[in-house]
């Protein structure tokens, strides 16, 4: 079952519909409810390699539904520590739980100050409302 629309507090959001949960010098990244809803049920996740460097605002993976493929944009720069293997096996996990089980990668942050220009939940909600 697809999750109900939500944009949790405590996450930081990028305008390309990605979220980041920052914990110390690491962060967990994923796509927002809005992004998964626009795509429909995901059937493929093309993850980055562990150890790869990703940089803010550029593509680090792809998610794909039956009808469409979408680049996943990094909200922050860093090095990939872990890819969510559950999403590789069962991409629909992202639809079911986009902020929990459906996370995409964990990274070691490259530049913590990059988080300053991400949106909080309230700002992202109003951003989405304008889409």
């Amino acid at each position: 079952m697809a999750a109900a629309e939500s944009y949790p507090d405590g996450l930081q959001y990028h305008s390309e519909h990605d979220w980041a949960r920052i914990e110390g010098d690491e962060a967990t990244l994923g796509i927002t409810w809005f992004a998964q809803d626009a795509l429909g049920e995901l059937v493929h996740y093309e993850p980055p390699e562990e150890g790869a460097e990703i940089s803010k605002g550029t593509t680090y993976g792809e998610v794909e539904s039956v009808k469409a493929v979408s680049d996943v944009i990094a909200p922050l720069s860093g090095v990939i520590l872990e890819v969510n293997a559950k999403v590789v096996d069962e991409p629909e996990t992202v639809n079911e739980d986009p902020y929990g089980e459906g996370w995409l990668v964990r990274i070691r942050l490259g530049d913590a100050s990059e988080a300053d220009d991400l949106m909080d939940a309230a700002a992202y909600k109003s951003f989405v409302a304008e889409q």
Partner: protein
Amino acid sequence: MQTLLRTPLYERHVSLGARMVPFAGWEMPVQYEGVIPEHRAVREDCGVFDVSHMGEIEVEGPHASDLLQSLLSNDVDKLEIGEAQYTLLTNEQGGIVDDLIVYRLEGGRYLLIVNASNRDADYDWIRERERPGSDVRNVSDRYALLAVQGPRSLERLGIDDAPAFTFAMGEIDGIEVMINRTGYTGEKGVELMVMNEDAGALWDAVLERGATPAGLGARDTLRLEVCYPLHGNDIGPETDAISAGLGWVCALETDFTGAEELRRIKADGPARKLVAFVMQDPGIPRQGMAIAEGGEVTSGSHSPMLDKGIGMGYVATEHADPGATLTIDVRGRERRAEIVKKPIYKKEGA
């Protein structure tokens, strides 16, 4: 700016929460609940598609059958009244102007149900070749068409079974319909042709009987799993019927447009063939992706039944045998696929 056309069921799609997209000049539902549940509903139970965007052309007159025999690849003379036939409208090169189903309504009266994107081109093509004693009419704007497909479709509609590629007039919940034993999903089912003004009532009745509304997204994955070609993707004016694997709908002993060229291709053997494949590596093939062994993907998607990427494409005949490996360029990544015998998906026990 061109305005998109809408079928008589447009408001019903919107009120069901469908995602509407432009398709062949029409604003059509691509999905309601989701492509995968809709696909499964058709494979396991019963789904209903609004395919009213498809075109209907009537050809009537003492020379109607001669005209059609000269333009269509299959043998029209084999049709009895009440029978239908899958066939191709071909050009001089043996290319496919359109693929369609011809229905023999009366002795000298035929109905052609054609692809939405080609309905005007088909009509013009046939009109230009019209001859005295045959009258060609584009009646597309009068009719709506609902495809009700799936193993439980007849039971849900309360109608008896009948042989594939036959049709009869009938009634569903008091609505007069032409019941065609045809479809584009590989499942048992019917296509119901109805006057535009009755389309809403028929749609409501079919939903009331438990059919799941299904959109163009599921229609595409269903037809691809059973390797039905899509005109504009897998076949077109530049691709010939023999290379496309549609020799079985070409009565090469008859004299239709392009028959001579098709006989030559068949005798020489086609240089390339339309093959079906299943991805062995992760990734979903998409139309236009290059195949390293030559050619490109003409249709590609995710198979909900196999839970793998699947597709079709033209490859050189020497690489076209089932079991052979293809290498597909999935956005810069080399991914392996295996050519399989058509259809890609076969029902268990079937």
